[in-house]
């Protein structure tokens, strides 16, 4: 896919072009600004921020703020740093992403290759669940998690994220499998292959790209979630909630450099995913606007 041939046929004059480049440059600076501010200031001693210029490079380069954010900063009442919360997030994200992606793949397979009466309704109901404001489920969810003994635990958060994630994963796989020739499935069926065998041998081997999209989308969403983490995290709070506690804590001196280092730590996993697989990330976003 060559980008050149896709470009518009519109041609522009030199002054217009210069202006266009200028605007693009300004926006580049705008988008990079917060990242620059966080990066630079996380490497300064606190005095250089409170007494100096936020935009300036550090005079003394130090990783102290990073060390503090990771292992000693006061989060809530415990001086544990963000490390345990980072682990909570990992323990929550990995199973939640895995389960919701597998379930989404199977659902997409059924909804496209084993269609039945009312399947569009079933899918529609699942799809709408992606878009509800989660405030509407907070109260009953808190009660149910309490009843199940999962309140304030990592398994509880996994359950919540799987439940409200399968709508999206089903959407991805459904749209993807819809383009896969159903004749191949029917032929395999005539040859005596069963439901799971067809999925395993025929659909799964071609599912790589959409699985990546689904994993990235779920990973980003679940890692970045705050509402569920804050509501049901209890003693197993994820990274986002811990970061917010760190930044909002009203006691003591505001250690801006530690806050910035913590913010980067919280952003790092999703940023890495974006850098490594940005193309798939964009595809997931686009499919999230329903049109595949």
């Amino acid at each position: 896919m060559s980008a050149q041939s896709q470009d518009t046929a519109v041609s522009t004059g030199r002054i217009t072009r210069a202006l266009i480049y200028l605007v693009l440059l300004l926006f580049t600076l705008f988008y990079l600004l917060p990242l620059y501010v966080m990066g630079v200031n996380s490497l300064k001693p606190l005095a250089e921020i409170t007494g100096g210029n936020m935009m300036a490079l550090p005079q003394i380069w130090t990783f102290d703020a990073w060390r503090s954010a990771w292992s000693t900063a006061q989060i809530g009442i415990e001086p544990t740093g963000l490390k345990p919360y980072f682990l909570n997030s990992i323990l929550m994200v990995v199973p939640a992403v895995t389960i919701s992606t597998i379930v989404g793949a199977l659902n997409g397979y059924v909804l496209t290759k084993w269609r039945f009466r009312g399947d569009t309704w079933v899918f529609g109901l699942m799809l709408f669940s992606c878009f509800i404001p989660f405030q509407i489920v907070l109260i009953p969810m808190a009660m149910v998690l309490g009843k199940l003994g999962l309140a304030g635990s990592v398994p509880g958060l996994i359950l919540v994220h799987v439940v409200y994630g399968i709508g999206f994963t089903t959407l991805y796989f459904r749209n993807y499998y819809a383009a896969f020739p159903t004749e191949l499935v029917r032929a395999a069926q005539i040859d005596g292959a069963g439901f799971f065998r067809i999925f395993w041998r025929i659909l799964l081997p071609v599912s790589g790209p959409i699985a990546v999209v689904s994993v990235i989308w779920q990973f980003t969403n679940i890692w970045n979630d705050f509402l569920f983490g804050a509501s049901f995290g209890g003693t197993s709070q994820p990274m986002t909630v811990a970061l917010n506690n760190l930044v909002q804590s009203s006691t003591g001196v505001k250690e801006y450099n530690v806050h910035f280092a913590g913010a980067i730590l919280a952003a790092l996993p999703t940023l890495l995913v974006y850098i490594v697989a940005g193309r798939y990330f964009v595809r997931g976003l686009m499919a999230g606007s329903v049109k595949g």
Partner: protein
Amino acid sequence: MTAPATADFRTRLQDWLPKMVLAPSFAVTLLFVYGFIAFTVLLSFTGSKMLPKYDFVGLDNYRRLFALEHWHIAIGNIAVFASLYIVICSAIGLMLAIFLDQKIRGEGFLRPIFLYPMALSFIVTGTAWKWFLDPGIGLEKVMRLWGWESFTFTWIKDNDLAIYCIVIAAVWQTSGFVMAMFLAGLRGIDNEILKAAQIDGASNWQLYRRIVIPMLRPAFLSAFVILSHLAIKSYDLVVALTGGGPGRSTEMPATFMYSYTFTRNQMGIGASSAVIMLMTIAAIMVPYLYAELKEKK
């Protein structure tokens, strides 16, 4: 006799298997989404305070909700925030997409820079902008140190202006994504149409105004739906950036619901505010999803 019987059983099982695989997800959706919605609606008609109670009070909570000044602030804020957010994101997204579409050198380098904020948590975005907009250490101080002594920028501390800080941070986070949506739309437009219009003597401005932008209608619709849905759900960004303050000046329905339900022990009112939020989103999403699904059939 037994062989055909087992074969029959196997085919029957094969017939049922797909539905059995889908059933748990569907059941979970019915219970955790629609059941929970029904339960919250039910609670909104009860006098629940700290814990759910089942004494029906009719529309009392809704009456009290709409009499609360706090709720009026939240509604006013979401109206200002959502409209500015949607309009500015769409305008910036469209402009950047059109500019990037002009055979720009380094497009492959710029696009990911415009889009990376979308990968971040709103809490991270909020933290970065909170301190950058803080007059004590951020932008105002930087400008003064650079020699612009009279420069003042105290929006984030100002009851009337703090809401615009949330708009800035939110636009920063999502405008690149809107750009990507418009760019995909632009790349889908047939160049022959543009060439034909050029031969007819259309200027670039006319070309975009009359032909290209009208052809982007589906992208506009998707952008509108996604942005409005993000706006109504916005909770984390407010919490991280302003905490709803100064005072209550940046309170939104999402933060209102949380504080009334979980910290002020007014569960009935919290539930009724959640119902209002759901109805607003449903009014936008249901027709959109319905149209999309019908089209696909």
